[in-house]
């Protein structure tokens, strides 16, 4: 690494950092200035930014998992919609034999969905401990 590179100062701001900056504004500036329902909603809004941030990071892995599942369990024409919709409709029509392999897919999918939406939910820790090694 040259001396010039070592002295470089970051000038770009990633999406994740932008979300963090807005979250900081909501929690540190807006929230103390608000009261009642608005204050409650400011906290909710800050949490929502966390969901967006985590979905940015984990969303592609989830989409790849769903696409692979659709390919494996819906060999014919899967019909319209996203991979989760196609799989749901095939399940409703009892066209998928939901064996242990399919259950395994659902578990791994759900670890990602839970990590995006509510990583602090108590059952997630239990699921992580039980299922991480299964993958």
């Amino acid at each position, binding site marked *: 690494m040259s001396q010039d590179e070592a002295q470089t100062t970051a000038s770009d701001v990633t999406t994740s950092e932008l979300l963090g900056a807005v979250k900081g504004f909501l929690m540190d500036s807006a929230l103390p200035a608000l009261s009642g*329902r608005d204050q409650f*909603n400011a906290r909710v809004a800050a949490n929502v930014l966390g969901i967006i941030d985590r979905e940015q990071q984990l969303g592609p892995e989830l989409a790849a998992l769903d696409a692979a599942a659709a390919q494996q369990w819906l060999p014919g024409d899967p019909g319209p*919609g996203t991979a*989760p919709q196609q*799989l*749901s*409709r095939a399940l409703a029509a009892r066209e998928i034999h939901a064996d242990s392999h399919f*259950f395994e897919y659902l578990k791994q999918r759900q670890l990602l969905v839970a990590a995006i*939406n509510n990583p602090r939910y108590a059952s*997630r820790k239990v699921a992580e401990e039980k299922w991480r090694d299964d993958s």
Partner: protein
Amino acid sequence: MSPDQLTALLNTELGESLAGKVPGEQVTQLERLSGGANNETWRLMWGSTSLILRRRPFSADSIDQLEGNILGLSLVDEAAVIQLATSTSVPVPEIHAVFDATHPIGEAFLMGFIAGESIPQKWLVDDTYEVARSRLAFQCGEALGRIHSIDCSELPPNIGPTTLEKRFTAAQKRLHAFGDISPVMQFGLNWLIDHAPSEASCVLLHGDFRTGNLLVDEQGLAGVLDWELTHQGPAAEDLGYLCANVWRFGQLHKPVGGFGEYDDLIAGYGSTAGWAPDLATIRYWEIFAALSWGLVCQTMGALWHSGNGDVERAAVARRRSEAELDILLLIEEWERA
């Protein structure tokens, strides 16, 4: 509606409604309590008496038009059921006034304030409530036994008996109406259909009897709130619902609501009902409760899309993932048992 507008409307109405019952002349200290993504809850003073107003912030039409609605009863019917429950020794608030959807206040009812702690994060962990927690599972069983003994023929006509088959059909309709977005929810419904217990007779269920809707004091159960999901169904449903993971508020090692044990709940129920459902059936209804919570979250998302609600309601839609996780955990546990 702003607090000032609501205060003005209540002042116009309550003088007559409360005359001779609750001394006072005008509303003071009206404040909206936090929580409640569905109905608003307001606390107010009338003279020196604390009262609680439950109000539905959107029109009845917007609910009726929502495909797959599971928001439950009108507040008018909810008030009628609470009044019925006062005939038992279940602790419920006194109803002072009821307003239907055509009233300027909106659909709402005014009830007495019961002293007690409602916030689970406090009473589930605070030492002050240690004795209360040790009694509560039995007391909840007792209360449910009493609620289930209420004569269903006295219920508002909207609260009729149903069957599991109808419930499954309704759940499937909702999953379709909400876009079939979750393979886990569909898997859960399929599993529940395939493992359904034999049909049991219908009783009046509270429908939302859980940590978060109970008022607790140092002696234990002080109040049973939020009757909007009241319906008829098998007794085991209410017991399983109370034990659902999502309502344990992180205290997963205490299966009854995050505070108690199955045996105490079942014994309490038996003491007032004269019989009790078996544990396997109760656990089946825990899985059903997980699916129901997921459907509530989806309903919140649909309501938000229809223009009703703020950022909280939009965020609750994402809590569907809690239900999905629990469906898989509970089914796995069941299959391995």
